[in-house]
């Protein structure tokens, strides 16, 4: 295919046509000629021409009219008008109709060549630009589709992770509940046998004690499970975390006489948007966990601070207890994982604590070394609402001060 630009000359003056054709063919263009408007239109409709030179006065129509028609049928074709006189109105109208330029007779050959060259350059830029825009639009659409697909996949992944976590929870739950049930069912059978005997058998009282205790154990397990099902994202208020920690310490205080508690609270810690009951549960769990790790006494250090980026607060619970062996560290937040003696807790406390932190949009990490203690670091976001709350309360305070000091002058 010939890649040379195609130019059409529309002029009824044979001399002019031939002259122009020679010049342009020498420049390396492919040239076609037409001697009337109709012929010109026919040629344009048969084949795309990059540029047309239109004489203003044609036998069958005005050059301006032809210009209009060409622009309508082939908008990408550059058009230049050849006029015998530089009438301003004609020139302006030509430009308005979409002509690239007009050339005035007698022709200045160099100017003609330059104008044509510029017009063709501009045309190729316009076409290229359009092509690029379309290709950009296409790849944008493809990208949008990919993002949509990824979002669907991600949602599915999160769902399946939740299901798998749920599955683990249910499996652990089953085991935990099955043991008390085993004792209850077995004892009930033994009681029936004992009841048949003539004199009261000590086994009757023993059996009843066990049944009641195991039944209570199942009740406690179900209460724990409730903590998982409770939505911690309702009942939100602006909470002063330092105060909540104090309350948790008061709540568990009597259980931990052998432990020294050191508090390093940041003063004026911003309030966070939280469910206060959830935070109480969280802190109680961590305090109990520390207590269990320091059965022979020790120090629990609790510190709070606003993070440097001011978008979250960090709460650290650090104990000087027995620490956690490395192989257990990754399991610490799993439901029913416990290293305590059987019967002394079912290992849900830390997994509930983790769950509550996540529900609040935060993170909890653990660092521990055997015999060197454990540190739990919780970060909780200071949300926009609570930041606004802070700003409002500071503002209100400012107003009050102004009133009290008689206002500004």
């Amino acid at each position, binding site marked *: 295919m010939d890649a040379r630009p195609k130019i059409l000359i529309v002029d009824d003056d044979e001399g002019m046509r031939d002259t122009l054709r020679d010049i342009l063919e020498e420049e390396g263009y492919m040239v076609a000629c037409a001697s009337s408007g109709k012929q010109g239109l026919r040629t344009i409709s048969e084949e795309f021409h990059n540029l047309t030179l239109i004489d203003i006065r044609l036998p069958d129509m005005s050059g301006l009219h032809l210009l209009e028609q060409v622009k309508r049928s082939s908008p990408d074709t550059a058009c230049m008008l050849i006029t015998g006189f530089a009438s301003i109105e004609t020139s302006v109208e030509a430009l308005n109709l979409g002509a690239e330029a007009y050339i005035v007779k007698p022709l200045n050959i160099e100017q003609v060549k330059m104008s044509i060259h510029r017009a063709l350059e501009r045309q190729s830029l316009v076409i290229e630009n359009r092509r690029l825009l379309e290709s950009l639009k296409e790849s944008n659409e493809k990208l949008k589709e990919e993002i949509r697909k990824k979002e669907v996949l991600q949602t599915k992944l999160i769902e399946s992770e939740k299901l798998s976590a749920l599955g683990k929870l249910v499996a652990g739950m089953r085991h935990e509940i099955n*043991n008390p049930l085993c004792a209850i069912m077995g004892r009930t059978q033994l009681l029936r046998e004992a009841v048949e005997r003539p004199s009261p058998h000590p086994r009757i009282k023993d059996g009843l004690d066990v049944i009641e205790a195991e039944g209570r154990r199942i009740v406690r397990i179900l209460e724990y499970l409730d903590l998982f099902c409770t939505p911690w994202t309702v009942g939100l208020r602006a909470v002063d975390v330092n105060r909540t920690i104090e309350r948790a310490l008061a709540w568990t205080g009597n259980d931990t006489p052998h432990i020294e508690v050191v508090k390093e609270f940041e003063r004026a810690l911003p309030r966070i948007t939280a469910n206060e009951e959830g935070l109480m549960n969280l802190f109680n769990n961590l305090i109990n966990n520390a207590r269990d790790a320091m059965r022979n006494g020790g120090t629990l250090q609790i510190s709070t601070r606003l993070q440097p980026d001011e978008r979250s607060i960090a709460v650290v619970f650090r104990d000087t207890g027995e620490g956690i062996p490395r192989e257990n560290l990754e399991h610490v937040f799993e439901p029913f994982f416990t290293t305590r003696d*059987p019967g002394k807790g079912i290992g849900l406390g830390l997994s509930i604590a983790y769950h509550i932190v996540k529900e609040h949009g935060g993170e909890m990490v653990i660092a521990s070394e055997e015999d060197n203690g454990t540190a739990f670091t919780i970060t909780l976001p200071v949300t926009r609402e609570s930041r606004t709350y802070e700003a409002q309360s500071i503002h209100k305070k400012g107003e009050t001060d102004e009133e009290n000091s008689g206002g500004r002058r």
Partner: protein
Amino acid sequence: MKKIVVADDDLNVRLLFNDVLSEEGYEVVGVASGPEAIREVESSSPDLLILDIKMPEMHGLQVLEKVREKNENLPVIICTAYKHMDDDPAVRESGVTAYLVKPVDINVLKDTVKQILGA
């Protein structure tokens, strides 16, 4: 007197088995974990081991494997919460003698033990 070792991490389950089986005339020793069970079997050579499948530290089948290394002929009963244990090829190939589903019916427990150890 025939000796039975009961391995289960739950105290009340151990006590239940103890009460039921000692009344039948067996000597019963309870242990709370897999490693303890292995030690007890090695040191006291019991006539039967009753093993819970889900214990902390070591899975019941692992304990069974270790016990079988030293003692091919010791009868072992596995206790499990799952009814369809015999569908699991790992269980079938482990050399288990019988299995009981929890919560255990004490009559089924007595009958199974009697079948294995005799009266």
